């Protein structure tokens, strides 16, 4: 099956947050609408980070530049890694990898253990207290399996988001990076081609990865290795000890503690 991916072009993004709104709308996720209910982040970014009710966020980074302010926007959501640490540690099978590269989250199977939250190198899955399960972008697999684009892509008015075969997305991303470099943006980079085995959400970072909030050389944390190790180790350890003790039990058959002799001696005294 063809692997698909989203391409986010930060150089085209106007940070209108339409994608954020559409994500919430399609996925029936509530938003804080009351006055001052979201913490002020010091910029136009709202909210400070992803949370249990927010799967997609446009990050704002602003710098003073000649003639005004220079903005660097970043799309923060699940990157749908080829080597997803969250899937490898999920004990309930709620997280799985689809053939098209999507890292799917089936909330009905999620047990709220938060293992995925702890091991994601991007800190993307968030615990949703209201339902007691994890929450993250599903790449709108309910739409894509029906031949539609993810909701965020469909709604983007600036065509900063596109969706298609991963190979085409990579090619388009590389072309765009070259265009930006030619236009004088020397630090322009494509993010997601090789990171975490290759991701299914790629980004054109106009001002370099760091400016847009993308982590360079992301790696699975050590905790993930411990989870993978401890399950078989505990099972083997317990089974091994039980086996040794079974041999001990069999070897000790017929043994009687010499209590009787001691008691008899005491009786005589």
């Amino acid at each position: 099956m063809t692997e698909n991916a989203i391409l986010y072009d930060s150089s085209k993004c106007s940070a209108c947050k339409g994608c954020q709104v559409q994500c919430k709308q399609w996925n029936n996720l509530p938003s804080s609408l009351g006055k001052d209910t979201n913490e002020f982040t010091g910029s136009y970014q709202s909210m400070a980070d992803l949370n249990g009710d927010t799967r997609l966020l446009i990050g704002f980074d602003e710098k003073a530049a000649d003639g005004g302010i220079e903005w660097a926007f970043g799309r923060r959501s699940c990157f749908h890694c080829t080597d997803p640490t969250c899937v490898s540690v999920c004990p309930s099978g709620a997280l799985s990898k689809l053939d098209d590269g999507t890292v799917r989250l089936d909330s009905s199977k999620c047990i709220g253990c938060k293992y995925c939250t702890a091991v994601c190198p991007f800190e993307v899955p968030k615990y949703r207290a209201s339902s007691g399960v994890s929450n993250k972008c599903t790449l709108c697999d309910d739409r894509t399996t029906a031949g539609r684009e993810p909701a965020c892509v469909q709604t983007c008015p600036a065509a900063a988001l596109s969706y298609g075969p991963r190979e085409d997305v990579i090619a388009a991303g590389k072309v765009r990076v070259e265009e930006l470099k030619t236009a004088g943006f020397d630090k322009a980079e494509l993010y997601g081609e090789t990171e975490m085995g290759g991701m299914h959400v790629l980004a054109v970072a106009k001002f370099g990865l760091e400016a847009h909030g993308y982590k360079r050389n992301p790696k699975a944390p050590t905790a993930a290795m411990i989870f993978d190790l401890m399950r078989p180790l505990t099972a083997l350890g317990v089974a091994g000890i039980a086996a040794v003790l079974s041999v001990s039990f069999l070897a000790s058959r017929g043994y009687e503690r010499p209590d009787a002799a001691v008691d008899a001696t005491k009786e005589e005294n």
Partner: protein
Amino acid sequence: MTRYIQRHSRLKRWVHGINTVSCFALILTGLVLFIPGVPQAFGEASVAFSRLGHRVFGVAFVVIPLVALVVAPKGFVHILQNLFAKWDADDRKFMALFPKYLFAPQTTHMPPQRAVKSGQRLSDGALIAAGILIGISGVVLWAGAYVSPAVLGIALAVHDVCFGIIAAIMVVHVYLGAGVWQPYRGLVRLMFGNGRVTEAEARYHWGHWAEEELARGTNVITEYAE
């Protein structure tokens, strides 16, 4: 006439009993994390039941020892004193002989021991340390929505490692403590009975301690046959 020594107080037996129930309940309800087939086989209801049960028994596992600590701080100090008692030649000899004893109790003569055998001091120490850490990490996990993913990762790793340690030690603890193994038959009543050992049992298992207790006499109970 049979002489007994009161080895464990009622409070200690109750705390141990509640913690035993809590511990097994926590293992059972924690299986949904350990064996993916469990929630898949039993459905959402098993997940909801496990999550609630894990929290209820988790509270009991943490709170009951703390209550006991407040009610009887001297008892806890006594436990620590026994755990950290200096090892003597008999303690070292006991540990050296234990592997052989485990498979050939008929031909192995074990040296006399003090209140807590040297091997049990190691396993109890590890159990208590792992119990404290798994309790603390459990509280952090419960507050998962309010801590950073990095802290959550540390708490989960600690929880998993401590579970492995506790599960492994529990197998041995039950084998010996519940008297499954022939030389330890009858010792289950120390924690799940009246907390007494016969003089003969005491001399066999804890020779030095038995001599001290019999000489002191305050914990010695004499029963006469009718």
